Protein backbone atom coordinates (compact mmCIF):
# COMPACT_ATOMS: atom_id res chain seq x y z
CA UNK A 1 0.00 0.00 0.00
CA UNK A 2 1.44 3.39 -0.93
CA UNK A 3 1.73 6.27 1.48
CA UNK A 4 -0.34 8.41 -0.83
CA UNK A 5 -3.41 6.21 -0.41
CA UNK A 6 -2.83 6.28 3.33
CA UNK A 7 -2.90 10.05 3.62
CA UNK A 8 -5.90 10.28 1.35
CA UNK A 9 -7.87 7.80 3.41
CA UNK A 10 -7.34 10.00 6.48
CA UNK A 11 -9.91 12.50 5.34
CA UNK A 12 -12.95 10.21 5.13
CA UNK A 13 -12.03 8.77 8.53
CA UNK A 14 -12.09 12.26 10.03
CA UNK A 15 -15.42 12.94 8.32
CA UNK A 16 -16.69 9.64 9.62
CA UNK A 17 -15.76 10.58 13.16
CA UNK A 18 -17.46 13.96 12.91
CA UNK A 19 -20.48 12.31 11.34
CA UNK A 20 -20.69 9.79 14.16
CA UNK A 21 -20.31 12.54 16.76
CA UNK A 22 -23.16 14.45 15.14
CA UNK A 23 -25.32 11.33 15.20
CA UNK A 24 -24.58 10.68 18.87
CA UNK A 25 -25.38 14.30 19.78
CA UNK A 26 -28.68 14.12 17.91
CA UNK A 27 -29.55 10.86 19.66
CA UNK A 28 -28.71 12.40 23.01
CA UNK A 29 -30.87 15.41 22.10
CA UNK A 30 -33.81 13.11 21.36
CA UNK A 31 -33.43 11.42 24.72
CA UNK A 32 -33.28 14.75 26.56
CA UNK A 33 -36.40 16.05 24.80
CA UNK A 34 -38.23 12.81 25.67
CA UNK A 35 -37.20 13.10 29.34
CA UNK A 36 -38.37 16.75 29.46
CA UNK A 37 -41.75 15.91 27.92
CA UNK A 38 -42.11 12.99 30.35
CA UNK A 39 -41.13 15.17 33.31
CA UNK A 40 -43.52 18.00 32.44
CA UNK A 41 -46.27 15.51 31.69
CA UNK A 42 -45.71 13.83 35.07
CA UNK A 43 -45.84 17.19 36.89
CA UNK A 44 -49.07 18.20 35.19
CA UNK A 45 -50.87 14.86 35.67
CA UNK A 46 -52.96 14.15 38.74
CA UNK A 47 -53.24 11.77 40.52
CA UNK A 48 -49.48 11.36 40.36
CA UNK A 49 -49.45 7.54 39.95
CA UNK A 50 -50.92 7.86 36.44
CA UNK A 51 -47.55 9.05 35.12
CA UNK A 52 -44.65 8.44 37.52
CA UNK A 53 -41.93 11.04 37.10
CA UNK A 54 -38.51 10.14 35.66
CA UNK A 55 -36.87 10.84 39.00
CA UNK A 56 -39.30 8.56 40.88
CA UNK A 57 -38.68 5.87 38.25
CA UNK A 58 -34.91 6.12 38.65
CA UNK A 59 -35.33 5.94 42.42
CA UNK A 60 -37.51 2.86 42.02
CA UNK A 61 -34.90 1.35 39.73
CA UNK A 62 -32.17 1.89 42.30
CA UNK A 63 -34.45 0.42 44.97
CA UNK A 64 -34.66 -2.78 42.93
CA UNK A 65 -31.03 -3.37 43.79
CA UNK A 66 -31.11 -2.02 47.35
CA UNK A 67 -33.20 -4.90 48.70
CA UNK A 68 -32.75 -8.64 48.29
CA UNK A 69 -35.23 -11.37 47.45
CA UNK A 70 -34.97 -15.13 47.73
CA UNK A 71 -36.02 -17.16 44.71
CA UNK A 72 -36.35 -20.88 44.17
CA UNK A 73 -34.10 -22.47 41.57
CA UNK A 74 -36.15 -24.87 39.46
CA UNK A 75 -35.11 -28.53 39.19
CA UNK A 76 -32.69 -28.38 42.14
CA UNK A 77 -35.25 -26.67 44.37
CA UNK A 78 -32.56 -24.79 46.28
CA UNK A 79 -33.06 -21.16 47.13
CA UNK A 80 -31.02 -18.25 45.88
CA UNK A 81 -30.80 -14.77 47.41
CA UNK A 82 -30.16 -11.91 45.00
CA UNK A 83 -30.84 -8.18 44.76
CA UNK A 84 -34.59 -7.94 44.07
CA UNK A 85 -34.36 -6.74 40.46
CA UNK A 86 -31.76 -9.32 39.57
CA UNK A 87 -33.74 -12.02 41.39
CA UNK A 88 -36.87 -11.49 39.29
CA UNK A 89 -34.82 -11.14 36.12
CA UNK A 90 -33.24 -14.48 36.95
CA UNK A 91 -36.69 -15.99 37.44
CA UNK A 92 -37.63 -14.82 33.98
CA UNK A 93 -34.44 -16.26 32.54
CA UNK A 94 -35.26 -19.65 34.11
CA UNK A 95 -38.04 -20.07 31.56
CA UNK A 96 -36.88 -17.62 28.88
CA UNK A 97 -33.53 -19.28 28.20
CA UNK A 98 -34.72 -22.92 27.93
CA UNK A 99 -37.75 -21.84 25.89
CA UNK A 100 -35.57 -19.82 23.52
CA UNK A 101 -32.85 -22.45 23.15
CA UNK A 102 -35.14 -25.46 22.68
CA UNK A 103 -37.46 -23.47 20.41
CA UNK A 104 -34.57 -22.21 18.29
CA UNK A 105 -32.95 -25.65 18.20
CA UNK A 106 -36.19 -27.36 17.18
CA UNK A 107 -37.13 -24.66 14.69
CA UNK A 108 -33.71 -24.58 13.04
CA UNK A 109 -33.58 -28.37 12.92
CA UNK A 110 -37.00 -28.81 11.34
CA UNK A 111 -36.45 -25.81 9.04
CA UNK A 112 -33.20 -27.27 7.72
CA UNK A 113 -34.69 -30.72 7.18
CA UNK A 114 -37.85 -29.44 5.52
CA UNK A 115 -35.97 -26.99 3.34
CA UNK A 116 -33.61 -29.75 2.29
CA UNK A 117 -35.90 -32.74 1.91
CA UNK A 118 -38.66 -32.33 -0.65
CA UNK A 119 -40.74 -35.26 0.60
CA UNK A 120 -40.72 -34.04 4.20
CA UNK A 121 -41.64 -30.61 2.88
CA UNK A 122 -44.63 -32.07 1.05
CA UNK A 123 -45.76 -33.90 4.18
CA UNK A 124 -45.48 -31.06 6.62
CA UNK A 125 -46.12 -27.91 4.62
CA UNK A 126 -49.93 -27.87 5.06
CA UNK A 127 -49.56 -28.56 8.78
CA UNK A 128 -47.09 -25.69 9.10
CA UNK A 129 -49.48 -23.40 7.21
CA UNK A 130 -52.22 -24.17 9.74
CA UNK A 131 -50.16 -23.99 12.93
CA UNK A 132 -47.93 -21.04 12.07
CA UNK A 133 -50.52 -18.22 12.27
CA UNK A 134 -51.56 -19.10 15.83
CA UNK A 135 -50.05 -16.41 18.10
CA UNK A 136 -47.81 -18.03 20.73
CA UNK A 137 -49.76 -16.45 23.56
CA UNK A 138 -52.92 -18.21 22.41
CA UNK A 139 -51.26 -21.43 23.57
CA UNK A 140 -51.35 -20.09 27.12
CA UNK A 141 -54.52 -22.06 27.84
CA UNK A 142 -52.72 -25.31 27.09
CA UNK A 143 -49.64 -24.13 28.92
CA UNK A 144 -51.86 -23.69 31.96
CA UNK A 145 -53.75 -27.00 31.75
CA UNK A 146 -50.72 -29.07 30.75
CA UNK A 147 -47.95 -27.56 32.81
CA UNK A 148 -49.52 -25.05 35.13
CA UNK A 149 -48.56 -21.42 34.78
CA UNK A 150 -45.10 -21.64 36.24
CA UNK A 151 -41.65 -21.98 34.68
CA UNK A 152 -42.56 -24.91 32.45
CA UNK A 153 -45.75 -23.33 31.14
CA UNK A 154 -44.02 -20.03 30.41
CA UNK A 155 -41.08 -21.84 28.78
CA UNK A 156 -43.57 -23.65 26.55
CA UNK A 157 -45.00 -20.34 25.29
CA UNK A 158 -41.52 -18.95 24.66
CA UNK A 159 -40.63 -22.22 22.91
CA UNK A 160 -43.47 -21.78 20.43
CA UNK A 161 -42.53 -18.17 19.75
CA UNK A 162 -38.87 -19.02 19.15
CA UNK A 163 -39.72 -22.12 17.15
CA UNK A 164 -41.50 -20.44 14.25
CA UNK A 165 -39.15 -17.52 13.79
CA UNK A 166 -36.16 -19.84 13.65
CA UNK A 167 -38.00 -22.38 11.57
CA UNK A 168 -38.72 -19.90 8.79
CA UNK A 169 -35.23 -18.42 8.86
CA UNK A 170 -33.59 -21.85 8.48
CA UNK A 171 -36.14 -23.03 5.92
CA UNK A 172 -35.61 -19.97 3.72
CA UNK A 173 -31.86 -20.15 4.20
CA UNK A 174 -31.59 -23.72 3.01
CA UNK A 175 -33.94 -23.18 0.10
CA UNK A 176 -31.74 -20.32 -1.04
CA UNK A 177 -28.53 -22.38 -1.26
CA UNK A 178 -27.00 -21.73 -4.67
CA UNK A 179 -27.11 -24.74 -7.01
CA UNK A 180 -23.57 -23.87 -8.09
CA UNK A 181 -22.29 -24.58 -4.59
CA UNK A 182 -23.95 -27.97 -4.28
CA UNK A 183 -22.73 -28.81 -7.80
CA UNK A 184 -19.19 -27.83 -6.86
CA UNK A 185 -19.38 -29.91 -3.69
CA UNK A 186 -20.66 -32.97 -5.53
CA UNK A 187 -17.85 -32.80 -8.08
CA UNK A 188 -15.48 -32.69 -5.08
CA UNK A 189 -16.77 -35.94 -3.67
CA UNK A 190 -19.69 -34.97 -1.41
CA UNK A 191 -22.14 -37.79 -2.02
CA UNK A 192 -24.43 -38.24 0.94
CA UNK A 193 -27.32 -35.86 1.48
CA UNK A 194 -26.43 -35.38 5.11
CA UNK A 195 -22.85 -34.39 4.28
CA UNK A 196 -24.17 -31.87 1.77
CA UNK A 197 -26.48 -30.43 4.43
CA UNK A 198 -23.65 -30.15 6.92
CA UNK A 199 -20.87 -28.98 4.59
CA UNK A 200 -22.76 -26.72 2.19
CA UNK A 201 -26.37 -25.98 3.10
CA UNK A 202 -25.84 -25.17 6.76
CA UNK A 203 -22.89 -22.78 6.39
CA UNK A 204 -24.56 -21.20 3.39
CA UNK A 205 -27.76 -20.64 5.38
CA UNK A 206 -25.90 -19.45 8.49
CA UNK A 207 -26.48 -15.71 7.92
CA UNK A 208 -30.23 -16.20 7.74
CA UNK A 209 -30.27 -18.65 10.64
CA UNK A 210 -28.37 -16.23 12.85
CA UNK A 211 -30.57 -13.29 11.87
CA UNK A 212 -33.59 -15.43 12.70
CA UNK A 213 -32.17 -16.27 16.10
CA UNK A 214 -31.44 -12.62 16.84
CA UNK A 215 -35.01 -11.67 15.90
CA UNK A 216 -36.31 -14.37 18.21
CA UNK A 217 -34.30 -12.98 21.13
CA UNK A 218 -36.39 -9.81 20.96
CA UNK A 219 -39.68 -11.49 20.13
CA UNK A 220 -39.34 -13.90 23.02
CA UNK A 221 -38.95 -11.01 25.47
CA UNK A 222 -42.36 -9.75 24.35
CA UNK A 223 -43.80 -13.24 24.68
CA UNK A 224 -42.25 -13.98 28.05
CA UNK A 225 -43.66 -10.83 29.58
CA UNK A 226 -47.05 -11.75 28.16
CA UNK A 227 -46.83 -15.18 29.75
CA UNK A 228 -45.83 -13.68 33.08
CA UNK A 229 -48.75 -11.30 33.10
CA UNK A 230 -50.79 -14.49 33.50
CA UNK A 231 -48.87 -15.33 36.64
CA UNK A 232 -45.56 -16.99 35.88
CA UNK A 233 -42.86 -15.55 38.17
CA UNK A 234 -40.44 -12.98 36.77
CA UNK A 235 -40.11 -9.34 35.71
CA UNK A 236 -43.40 -9.36 33.77
CA UNK A 237 -45.25 -10.57 36.85
CA UNK A 238 -43.55 -7.85 38.92
CA UNK A 239 -44.75 -5.17 36.49
CA UNK A 240 -48.38 -6.11 37.06
CA UNK A 241 -47.79 -6.85 40.74
CA UNK A 242 -46.39 -3.35 41.33
CA UNK A 243 -49.22 -1.71 39.41
CA UNK A 244 -51.76 -3.59 41.53
CA UNK A 245 -50.24 -1.71 44.46
CA UNK A 246 -50.29 1.50 42.41
CA UNK A 247 -46.45 1.53 42.60
CA UNK A 248 -46.26 2.60 38.97
CA UNK A 249 -42.69 3.87 39.30
CA UNK A 250 -41.66 0.30 40.14
CA UNK A 251 -43.49 -0.95 37.05
CA UNK A 252 -41.50 1.54 34.97
CA UNK A 253 -38.29 0.37 36.68
CA UNK A 254 -39.02 -3.24 35.65
CA UNK A 255 -39.85 -2.10 32.13
CA UNK A 256 -36.42 -0.52 31.87
CA UNK A 257 -34.84 -3.61 33.36
CA UNK A 258 -36.35 -5.67 30.52
CA UNK A 259 -35.10 -3.15 27.98
CA UNK A 260 -31.63 -3.32 29.49
CA UNK A 261 -31.60 -7.12 29.50
CA UNK A 262 -32.69 -7.22 25.88
CA UNK A 263 -30.07 -4.66 24.82
CA UNK A 264 -27.29 -6.63 26.49
CA UNK A 265 -28.34 -9.85 24.79
CA UNK A 266 -28.81 -8.18 21.42
CA UNK A 267 -25.43 -6.45 21.50
CA UNK A 268 -23.73 -9.61 22.70
CA UNK A 269 -25.27 -11.66 19.95
CA UNK A 270 -24.44 -9.08 17.28
CA UNK A 271 -20.78 -9.27 18.31
CA UNK A 272 -20.91 -13.06 18.09
CA UNK A 273 -22.64 -12.84 14.70
CA UNK A 274 -20.01 -10.44 13.40
CA UNK A 275 -17.25 -12.86 14.33
CA UNK A 276 -18.94 -15.95 12.92
CA UNK A 277 -19.90 -14.21 9.69
CA UNK A 278 -16.60 -12.42 9.11
CA UNK A 279 -16.57 -13.94 5.62
CA UNK A 280 -19.52 -11.87 4.45
Amino acid at each position, binding site marked *: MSTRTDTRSDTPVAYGFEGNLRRYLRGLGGLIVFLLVWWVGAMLTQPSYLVPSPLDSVRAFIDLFATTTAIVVPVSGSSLVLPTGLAHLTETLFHYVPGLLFGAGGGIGLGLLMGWNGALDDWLRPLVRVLRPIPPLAWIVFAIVWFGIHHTGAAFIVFIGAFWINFYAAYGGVEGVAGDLTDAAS*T*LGVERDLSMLKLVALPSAAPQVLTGFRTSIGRCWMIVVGAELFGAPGVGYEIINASNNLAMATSVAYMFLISLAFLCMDIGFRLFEGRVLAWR
Partner: protein
Amino acid sequence: MALSSESPVNRESREKITVQNVSRAYDSTQALEGVSLSVGEGEFCCIVGPSGCGKTTLLRAIAGLDDPDTGSILVGGDPVTGPGLDRGMVFQEYALFPWRTVRGNIRFGLDRPACGCPDCEARARELIELVGLDGFEDAYPKELSGGMKQRVGIARALTPDPEILLMDEPFGSVDARTRDRLHTELLDIWAQTEQTVVFVTHDIDEAVKLADRVVVMDAEPGMVQSTVSIDVERPRERTAHDFVEYVAQIRAELGEPEPR
Protein backbone atom coordinates in the same frame (compact mmCIF):
# COMPACT_ATOMS: atom_id res chain seq x y z
CA MET B 1 -7.36 -55.84 -36.29
CA ALA B 2 -5.18 -53.32 -38.03
CA LEU B 3 -1.98 -52.31 -36.36
CA SER B 4 -2.13 -48.83 -34.97
CA SER B 5 0.23 -46.49 -36.73
CA GLU B 6 0.11 -43.99 -33.87
CA SER B 7 3.13 -43.77 -31.63
CA PRO B 8 2.65 -44.50 -27.94
CA VAL B 9 3.98 -41.02 -27.17
CA ASN B 10 0.89 -39.52 -28.73
CA ARG B 11 -1.36 -38.97 -25.75
CA GLU B 12 -4.34 -38.21 -27.94
CA SER B 13 -4.39 -41.67 -29.37
CA ARG B 14 -6.65 -43.08 -26.62
CA GLU B 15 -10.21 -41.91 -26.19
CA LYS B 16 -10.84 -40.49 -22.74
CA ILE B 17 -14.34 -39.14 -23.18
CA THR B 18 -16.90 -40.56 -25.58
CA VAL B 19 -20.23 -38.85 -26.05
CA GLN B 20 -22.64 -40.96 -28.10
CA ASN B 21 -25.79 -39.55 -29.63
CA VAL B 22 -26.77 -37.53 -26.56
CA SER B 23 -30.03 -35.57 -26.52
CA ARG B 24 -31.43 -33.38 -23.78
CA ALA B 25 -34.58 -31.25 -23.79
CA TYR B 26 -35.68 -28.62 -21.30
CA ASP B 27 -39.37 -27.81 -21.44
CA SER B 28 -39.71 -26.41 -24.94
CA THR B 29 -36.07 -26.15 -25.99
CA GLN B 30 -33.91 -28.90 -27.42
CA ALA B 31 -30.63 -28.15 -25.67
CA LEU B 32 -28.80 -31.07 -27.24
CA GLU B 33 -29.81 -33.23 -30.16
CA GLY B 34 -27.86 -36.30 -31.21
CA VAL B 35 -24.52 -34.98 -30.04
CA SER B 36 -21.56 -37.30 -30.52
CA LEU B 37 -18.03 -36.35 -29.66
CA SER B 38 -14.84 -37.88 -28.46
CA VAL B 39 -11.94 -36.36 -26.60
CA GLY B 40 -8.54 -38.03 -26.55
CA GLU B 41 -6.50 -38.62 -23.43
CA GLY B 42 -4.48 -35.53 -22.59
CA GLU B 43 -6.20 -33.49 -25.24
CA PHE B 44 -7.19 -29.85 -24.77
CA CYS B 45 -10.60 -29.61 -26.38
CA CYS B 46 -12.56 -26.38 -26.65
CA ILE B 47 -16.28 -26.26 -27.33
CA VAL B 48 -17.49 -23.02 -28.91
CA GLY B 49 -20.91 -21.94 -30.00
CA PRO B 50 -23.55 -19.26 -29.56
CA SER B 51 -25.50 -19.06 -26.32
CA GLY B 52 -28.21 -21.68 -26.23
CA CYS B 53 -26.22 -24.24 -28.21
CA GLY B 54 -26.13 -26.56 -25.22
CA LYS B 55 -22.38 -26.41 -24.66
CA THR B 56 -22.81 -25.94 -20.92
CA THR B 57 -25.42 -28.71 -20.82
CA LEU B 58 -22.99 -31.01 -22.58
CA LEU B 59 -20.23 -30.16 -20.11
CA ARG B 60 -22.55 -30.70 -17.14
CA ALA B 61 -23.60 -34.04 -18.59
CA ILE B 62 -19.95 -35.12 -18.82
CA ALA B 63 -19.49 -33.93 -15.22
CA GLY B 64 -22.45 -36.07 -14.19
CA LEU B 65 -24.42 -33.06 -12.96
CA ASP B 66 -27.08 -33.41 -15.62
CA ASP B 67 -28.76 -36.53 -17.02
CA PRO B 68 -29.17 -36.70 -20.78
CA ASP B 69 -32.57 -37.94 -22.01
CA THR B 70 -31.01 -40.37 -24.47
CA GLY B 71 -27.53 -41.43 -25.52
CA SER B 72 -24.57 -42.30 -23.37
CA ILE B 73 -21.39 -40.75 -22.09
CA LEU B 74 -18.31 -42.84 -21.38
CA VAL B 75 -15.34 -41.64 -19.42
CA GLY B 76 -12.33 -43.93 -19.61
CA GLY B 77 -14.67 -46.55 -21.01
CA ASP B 78 -17.13 -46.45 -18.10
CA PRO B 79 -20.58 -44.89 -18.37
CA VAL B 80 -21.12 -41.68 -16.38
CA THR B 81 -23.76 -42.14 -13.69
CA GLY B 82 -23.00 -39.10 -11.54
CA PRO B 83 -20.25 -36.72 -10.48
CA GLY B 84 -16.91 -38.31 -9.76
CA LEU B 85 -13.48 -37.39 -8.50
CA ASP B 86 -11.98 -38.31 -11.86
CA ARG B 87 -13.60 -35.17 -13.30
CA GLY B 88 -12.84 -31.76 -11.80
CA MET B 89 -15.11 -28.87 -12.66
CA VAL B 90 -14.40 -25.14 -12.90
CA PHE B 91 -17.49 -22.94 -12.88
CA GLN B 92 -18.24 -19.74 -14.75
CA GLU B 93 -19.21 -17.85 -11.59
CA TYR B 94 -16.42 -19.53 -9.57
CA ALA B 95 -18.81 -21.30 -7.15
CA LEU B 96 -16.38 -20.78 -4.28
CA PHE B 97 -17.64 -21.41 -0.77
CA PRO B 98 -17.82 -17.84 0.53
CA TRP B 99 -17.53 -18.91 4.17
CA ARG B 100 -14.19 -20.60 3.54
CA THR B 101 -10.83 -18.94 2.98
CA VAL B 102 -8.68 -19.67 -0.05
CA ARG B 103 -7.01 -22.47 1.90
CA GLY B 104 -10.39 -23.63 3.21
CA ASN B 105 -11.85 -23.88 -0.29
CA ILE B 106 -8.89 -25.93 -1.43
CA ARG B 107 -9.00 -28.06 1.71
CA PHE B 108 -12.67 -28.79 0.97
CA GLY B 109 -11.55 -30.84 -1.99
CA LEU B 110 -8.76 -32.50 -0.03
CA ASP B 111 -10.71 -33.38 3.09
CA ARG B 112 -13.39 -35.53 1.46
CA PRO B 113 -13.14 -39.16 2.50
CA ALA B 114 -11.86 -40.15 -0.91
CA CYS B 115 -8.67 -38.17 -0.45
CA GLY B 116 -5.60 -40.21 0.22
CA CYS B 117 -3.04 -37.45 0.39
CA PRO B 118 -0.44 -38.15 3.07
CA ASP B 119 -0.02 -34.48 3.99
CA CYS B 120 -3.07 -32.44 2.98
CA GLU B 121 -1.62 -29.18 4.28
CA ALA B 122 1.47 -29.54 2.10
CA ARG B 123 -0.69 -30.46 -0.88
CA ALA B 124 -2.85 -27.36 -0.28
CA ARG B 125 0.27 -25.20 -0.19
CA GLU B 126 1.51 -26.79 -3.38
CA LEU B 127 -1.79 -26.03 -5.16
CA ILE B 128 -1.88 -22.47 -3.85
CA GLU B 129 1.62 -22.01 -5.23
CA LEU B 130 0.68 -23.64 -8.52
CA VAL B 131 -2.03 -21.02 -9.14
CA GLY B 132 0.12 -18.19 -7.78
CA LEU B 133 -1.93 -17.28 -4.73
CA ASP B 134 0.84 -17.36 -2.10
CA GLY B 135 0.09 -14.77 0.53
CA PHE B 136 -3.66 -15.00 0.04
CA GLU B 137 -4.21 -18.30 1.87
CA ASP B 138 -6.33 -16.71 4.56
CA ALA B 139 -8.35 -14.34 2.35
CA TYR B 140 -12.08 -14.89 1.91
CA PRO B 141 -13.49 -14.97 -1.63
CA LYS B 142 -15.14 -11.55 -1.18
CA GLU B 143 -11.66 -10.06 -0.83
CA LEU B 144 -10.42 -11.45 -4.15
CA SER B 145 -10.65 -10.15 -7.71
CA GLY B 146 -12.41 -12.21 -10.36
CA GLY B 147 -9.16 -13.56 -11.74
CA MET B 148 -7.96 -14.61 -8.30
CA LYS B 149 -11.28 -16.24 -7.52
CA GLN B 150 -10.98 -18.35 -10.62
CA ARG B 151 -7.44 -19.33 -9.68
CA VAL B 152 -8.91 -20.69 -6.47
CA GLY B 153 -11.61 -22.41 -8.52
CA ILE B 154 -8.96 -24.10 -10.65
CA ALA B 155 -6.83 -25.11 -7.66
CA ARG B 156 -9.90 -26.55 -5.94
CA ALA B 157 -10.89 -28.52 -9.02
CA LEU B 158 -7.37 -29.95 -9.12
CA THR B 159 -7.44 -31.16 -5.50
CA PRO B 160 -8.60 -34.74 -6.14
CA ASP B 161 -5.99 -34.88 -8.93
CA PRO B 162 -8.64 -35.55 -11.59
CA GLU B 163 -7.81 -37.03 -14.94
CA ILE B 164 -10.21 -34.64 -16.60
CA LEU B 165 -10.69 -30.93 -16.09
CA LEU B 166 -14.06 -29.55 -17.19
CA MET B 167 -14.20 -25.77 -17.52
CA ASP B 168 -17.40 -23.82 -18.12
CA GLU B 169 -16.54 -20.38 -19.56
CA PRO B 170 -14.13 -19.98 -16.67
CA PHE B 171 -12.66 -16.66 -17.77
CA GLY B 172 -15.88 -15.08 -19.02
CA SER B 173 -16.08 -12.60 -16.15
CA VAL B 174 -12.46 -11.46 -15.93
CA ASP B 175 -10.89 -8.54 -17.78
CA ALA B 176 -8.94 -9.12 -21.00
CA ARG B 177 -5.44 -8.68 -19.57
CA THR B 178 -6.05 -11.03 -16.68
CA ARG B 179 -7.59 -13.51 -19.10
CA ASP B 180 -4.42 -13.56 -21.19
CA ARG B 181 -2.34 -14.27 -18.13
CA LEU B 182 -4.73 -16.98 -16.97
CA HIS B 183 -4.53 -18.63 -20.41
CA THR B 184 -0.76 -18.89 -20.10
CA GLU B 185 -1.01 -20.24 -16.57
CA LEU B 186 -3.67 -22.74 -17.54
CA LEU B 187 -1.55 -24.06 -20.40
CA ASP B 188 1.40 -24.39 -18.00
CA ILE B 189 -0.72 -26.33 -15.52
CA TRP B 190 -2.05 -28.52 -18.32
CA ALA B 191 1.50 -29.23 -19.50
CA GLN B 192 2.47 -30.21 -15.95
CA THR B 193 -0.57 -32.32 -15.06
CA GLU B 194 -1.13 -33.88 -18.50
CA GLN B 195 -4.87 -33.78 -17.90
CA THR B 196 -7.61 -34.01 -20.46
CA VAL B 197 -9.31 -30.62 -20.64
CA VAL B 198 -12.76 -29.80 -21.97
CA PHE B 199 -13.14 -26.04 -22.07
CA VAL B 200 -16.42 -24.34 -22.97
CA THR B 201 -16.33 -20.78 -24.29
CA HIS B 202 -18.16 -18.46 -26.64
CA ASP B 203 -14.94 -16.61 -27.40
CA ILE B 204 -13.44 -17.97 -30.63
CA ASP B 205 -10.07 -16.29 -30.03
CA GLU B 206 -9.85 -17.99 -26.66
CA ALA B 207 -10.65 -21.38 -28.19
CA VAL B 208 -8.04 -21.04 -30.94
CA LYS B 209 -5.46 -19.84 -28.45
CA LEU B 210 -5.89 -22.81 -26.13
CA ALA B 211 -7.21 -25.83 -27.94
CA ASP B 212 -5.74 -28.82 -29.72
CA ARG B 213 -9.13 -29.18 -31.27
CA VAL B 214 -12.17 -26.90 -31.39
CA VAL B 215 -15.65 -28.39 -31.47
CA VAL B 216 -18.06 -25.95 -33.08
CA MET B 217 -21.67 -26.20 -31.95
CA ASP B 218 -24.88 -24.86 -33.40
CA ALA B 219 -27.96 -23.66 -31.52
CA GLU B 220 -31.61 -24.69 -31.62
CA PRO B 221 -31.29 -27.58 -31.58
CA GLY B 222 -27.84 -27.83 -30.02
CA MET B 223 -25.64 -30.07 -32.13
CA VAL B 224 -22.04 -30.48 -33.21
CA GLN B 225 -21.50 -28.66 -36.46
CA SER B 226 -17.86 -29.33 -37.11
CA THR B 227 -14.52 -30.00 -35.49
CA VAL B 228 -11.38 -28.00 -36.24
CA SER B 229 -7.90 -29.18 -35.27
CA ILE B 230 -5.66 -26.27 -34.42
CA ASP B 231 -2.22 -27.01 -35.75
CA VAL B 232 -0.21 -24.11 -34.39
CA GLU B 233 2.80 -24.18 -32.07
CA ARG B 234 2.20 -22.82 -28.56
CA PRO B 235 2.51 -20.13 -27.33
CA ARG B 236 0.18 -18.76 -29.96
CA GLU B 237 0.01 -15.15 -31.03
CA ARG B 238 -3.39 -13.69 -31.83
CA THR B 239 -1.90 -11.63 -34.63
CA ALA B 240 -0.10 -14.53 -36.35
CA HIS B 241 -1.35 -15.32 -39.83
CA ASP B 242 -2.49 -18.89 -39.22
CA PHE B 243 -4.17 -17.89 -35.91
CA VAL B 244 -6.25 -15.31 -37.74
CA GLU B 245 -7.07 -17.88 -40.42
CA TYR B 246 -8.38 -20.40 -37.88
CA VAL B 247 -10.49 -17.73 -36.17
CA ALA B 248 -11.94 -16.68 -39.51
CA GLN B 249 -12.66 -20.29 -40.43
CA ILE B 250 -14.55 -21.00 -37.18
CA ARG B 251 -16.38 -17.71 -37.40
CA ALA B 252 -17.51 -18.66 -40.88
CA GLU B 253 -18.68 -22.05 -39.65
CA LEU B 254 -20.76 -20.31 -37.01
CA GLY B 255 -22.18 -18.00 -39.66
CA GLU B 256 -20.92 -14.96 -37.81
CA PRO B 257 -19.97 -11.91 -39.88
CA GLU B 258 -16.36 -10.72 -39.88
CA PRO B 259 -15.87 -8.05 -37.26
CA ARG B 260 -14.86 -4.76 -38.83
